[in-house]
C-alpha cells in the first residue's frame, strides 16, 4: 500500500491529480463561482470533445507512436457526415449518425495504419502529412461552406439533457447527452487496454518494439488496428462536436492537436511510449480544461493560459523523469558497491 502510494506520488497522474485539486481549491477560494453548478457543468461540457480525442491519442502514445492527424479526421468526419445527411435528405437515428462518423474515421485511420503498419513509416511524419492531406481533401472535395442548420435528429439529440439543474434564478443548466460518448469511449478503451491481449500488445509495443517482434507479436497488424481504432474515436469526436455546437464548420477542430496531446501527456502518457492510463488522461483533460476556461473566472488574463499549460507539462513530465533518474542512480550504486565491499571484506 505504501509502495503504491509512493509510486502514485512519483507518477505524472499523481502529480496532475494533486495539481488539479490544488487548482480547484485555489480557484474556488478566489472566486466561489468556480464551484457553482453552472460552472462545473460548463467544465464537463467543454471537456467532452477534447476528452474523446485524448483517449484516441492515448492509444497511439501508449504504443510508442504519435498522432497529430486526429483533428483532421474529426473535422472530416463532422463535416462529411453532416453534409451526407443534408444532401441525401435521409433521417437515420442518432446512433446511425454516430456510426457513419465513426466509419469515416476508421477509413481515414486505415490510411494512417497502412502507411505506418505496412510501409513502416514513422508515425509523426505520416500523421503530419495526413493532417494536411485529410484537411485538404475535405476542403477541396467535400466543401468549405458551413452549415448553420444541422439535421433535426442532431438538434433533438443536442437538446436532450443527461442532467439538468434548475437554478434559483429560474435558469436551467444542462449537461448534454454527448457526455455519455466520452464516458462510453473511456470505459471501452480502459477495458481494451487492460483486459485484452490487443491492449497489452499496445503497451508491449510501446515498451520495446524489437522485443515485441522477438516474442512473435505481429507488430504491423497491431499498428494497423491501433490507427483504425484511433481514427474511429476521432470520427466520433467530430460528430459529437457538431451536436454540441449545432453548426457544422469544416474549419473547426484543426489547430487544437497540441492542446489535446498536452492533456494526454499531462495525464501520464509518455511521448516515448509504453505508459499512460485512461484515468490519467481524463485527469489531464480536466486540468487543461480548468486552466483554459477558468483562469478568466479568477481574473487572470487569457495569455497566461499558455504559460501555465507549458509550466505544467514541464512539471508533470519532468519531475517523474528526474525522480526515476535519481532512483536508477541509487540502484547502480547499490548494485556496484555491495559486491566490491563484500570482495574486499573477504580478501
Amino acid at each position: 500500500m505504501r509502495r503504491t502510494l509512493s509510486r502514485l506520488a512519483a507518477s505524472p497522474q499523481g502529480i496532475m491529480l494533486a495539481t488539479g485539486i490544488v487548482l480547484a481549491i485555489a480557484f474556488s477560494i478566489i472566486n466561489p463561482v468556480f464551484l457553482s453548478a453552472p460552472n462545473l457543468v460548463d467544465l464537463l461540457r467543454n471537456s467532452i470533445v477534447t476528452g474523446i480525442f485524448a483517449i484516441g491519442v492515448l492509444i497511439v502514445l501508449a504504443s510508442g507512436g504519435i498522432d497529430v492527424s486526429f483533428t483532421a479526421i474529426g473535422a472530416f468526419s463532422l463535416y462529411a457526415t453532416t453534409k451526407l445527411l443534408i444532401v441525401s435528405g435521409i433521417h437515420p437515428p442518432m446512433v446511425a449518425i454516430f456510426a457513419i462518423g465513426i466509419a469515416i474515421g476508421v477509413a481515414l485511420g486505415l490510411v494512417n495504419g497502412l502507411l505506418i503498419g505496412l510501409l513502416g513509416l514513422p508515425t509523426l511524419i505520416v500523421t503530419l502529412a495526413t493532417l494536411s492531406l485529410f484537411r485538404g481533401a475535405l476542403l477541396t472535395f467535400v466543401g468549405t461552406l458551413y452549415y448553420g442548420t444541422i439535421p433535426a435528429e442532431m438538434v433533438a439529440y443536442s437538446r436532450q439533457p443527461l442532467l439538468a439543474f434548475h437554478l434559483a434564478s429560474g435558469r436551467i443548466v444542462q449537461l448534454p447527452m454527448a457526455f455519455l460518448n466520452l464516458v462510453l469511449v473511456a470505459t471501452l478503451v480502459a477495458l481494451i487496454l487492460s483486459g485484452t491481449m490487443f491492449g497489452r500488445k499496445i503497451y508491449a509495443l510501446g515498451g520495446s518494439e524489437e522485443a515485441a517482434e522477438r516474442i512473435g507479436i505481429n507488430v504491423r497488424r497491431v499498428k494497423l488496428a491501433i490507427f483504425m481504432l484511433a481514427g474511429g474515436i476521432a470520427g466520433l469526436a467530430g460528430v459529437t462536436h457538431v451536436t454540441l455546437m449545432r453548426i457544422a464548420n469544416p474549419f473547426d477542430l484543426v489547430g487544437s492537436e497540441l492542446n489535446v496531446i498536452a492533456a494526454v501527456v499531462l495525464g501520464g502518457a509518455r511521448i516515448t511510449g509504453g505508459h499512460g492510463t485512461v484515468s490519467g488522461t481524463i485527469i489531464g483533460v480536466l486540468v487543461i480544461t480548468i486552466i483554459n476556461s477558468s483562469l478568466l473566472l479568477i481574473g487572470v488574463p487569457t495569455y497566461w493560459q499558455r504559460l501555465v499549460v507549458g509550466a505544467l507539462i514541464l512539471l508533470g513530465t519532468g519531475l517523474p523523469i528526474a525522480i526515476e533518474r535519481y532512483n536508477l542512480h541509487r540502484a547502480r550504486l547499490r548494485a556496484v558497491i555491495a559486491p566490491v565491499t563484500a570482495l574486499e571484506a573477504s580478501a
Partner: protein
Amino acid sequence: MRGIHKSYGPARVLQDVDFELGSGEVRCLAGENGSGKSTLIKILSGVVAANAGTVRLFGQPVAGTDPAAVIAAGLSVIYQDFSLFPNLTVVENVTFLRATAHRHRLVHRGERRRLAAATLERMGVSLDLDEPVETLPVAAKQLVAIARALANDARIVVMDEPTTALTRHEVDNLLRLVAGLKREGVSFIFVSHKIEEVFTVCDTVTVIRDGRVAAAGSASDFTPAALVTAMTGRDVSSQRLARDETAVGEPFLSARGLTRIGEYRDVDLDLHAGEIVSIVGLLGSGRTELALTLFGETRPDGGTLRVAGQPRSFGSVRDAMAAGIAYVPEDRLSEGLFLDQPIRDNITVSSLDRDTRGGWLDVAAGARRAKAAVERLRIRLQNVAAPVVQLSGGNQQRVVLARWMERNPKLIILNSPTVGVDVGSKRDIHELLVGLRANGTAVLVVTDDIGEALAISDRILVMAGGRITATLAGDRATEHEIAAEVAKEAA
C-alpha cells in the same frame, strides 16, 4: 544443425558448421566478436535462413524463417538485452510469450499471476510480481527473461552473453539455477567469451572462429589455454612487423592506481611516444572500460593520471582530445562513423577547426584534406562524397583512422581495430599503426586477438578480472604464454 552455410553478399559468415545439443546438456558456444556465432544463433532461432545445411529441432526439420514456430517448438533465446518490456510488470513479462503463443484474446489475470508465481518458485527465486521490470536490477531482469522462456515450456534456452552484466555473486546464482534446470531436462546454449563459465557450467564446447568450427568436444578435454588459443588463434601465422628502435623517453601518459569501481582496479600504465602497447584481455576483463577512462568518457573513482608530466583529470571527451588523445571505438558502426554521411565529412568532422577561416568553414580545404587522407591510407572508393555505409569493413575502419590522424594525436587508442576486417586490410592497418609509431605517436591497442598483439606491440599487457596481471615484451612473448595469462582468471 548440419553443414550450415551462410553468406551476406560476398562475405561468408558461416561455412560448414555442425552443431549438436542433447537433452539436459549445457553447451558453450564460444568465439570472438564477428566469428559468426550470433549468425548461428539467428539461424537456429529462425530469424534468418541458412544458405545451405539443415536444422533439426527435437528431431523435426526447421525450414526457412519462422521464429514463432521455433518458439512454439520449445526454443527460447535470451538476448543480451533480455528483450523485456520495461514498462510492464514482472507477471506480464513472464507470461506474455505464453499468452501470445497460445493466441489468447483476453487477459487471464488470475491464471497469468499463478503461472508467473509458479515459474519463479520452480526457479527458486522471489521477485515482487507487480514491480515494473524497468526498476529491477540487471540480474533480476535476466531471471524474468529466463522465467518467460520457462513459462512457455522452453526445453532449450539459448543465452547470449549471460554473465557480462552480472556480479560474481549473481553469476554463481545463475549457474546454480542452470544446474537445477538441467536436472529437469532443460538444455542450454551459453554464447560466451568467458573461459571461466565454460569450465564451471558447460558440459560441452563448440568454438567458432572465422565462421568455422575451430574446436568442439567435452569441456573436460580442454585446458583454459587451449580454449583461448582456439578462440583467438586466428592468423597465427602473422609475422611480427619490422620496426626501427625508438628511444623511449618520459611517458606521454602515465596512470597510477587507476580504479573505477566494478570495472577495473589498481591499474598502473605508462605509454611513451613512439611505442605500441597492447592490452590483451577477454570481454569483461575491464579493457574497454579502462580505455574509455583514458579518453575522458568516464571518470575514475581513484588513482592518478598524468599527461605529458602534468597531473590531469579529464572531465569530458573534449578535455582528452584537447590533450592530444584520440580514440577509435570498438563498434565503429554505432559509435565511430556517421554511416549515411559522405566519406569526406566523416574524415574531417573532428578536425573542422583546421578548415575554419574567421568563423567560416572552408569546404574546399576540407575536401582537399579528405582526398589526401584517402590516398595516404589507401582507402578504396569511387568518390569522397559517397556515404561511408557503401565501404567495406576494412575501408570503413580506415576512414575512422583517417579522421583521428587528421588531428595529429599524440596518443591514439584503438579498441579491437581489426574485428570484422579481412586479412589483407588487417595487415594494412597494422602497417599504418607502425607508421604512426615511427612518427612519434604513442599507440595503445585494446584487443582479444593475440596474433594481432604479437604482430605490432612493443609491450603487451594482459588484463583479467579488472587488473593488469602480466606485462610481456612484444618481441619475446609467445602466443602460448599470452593465452595462458589471459585464461588465468579461471584459476
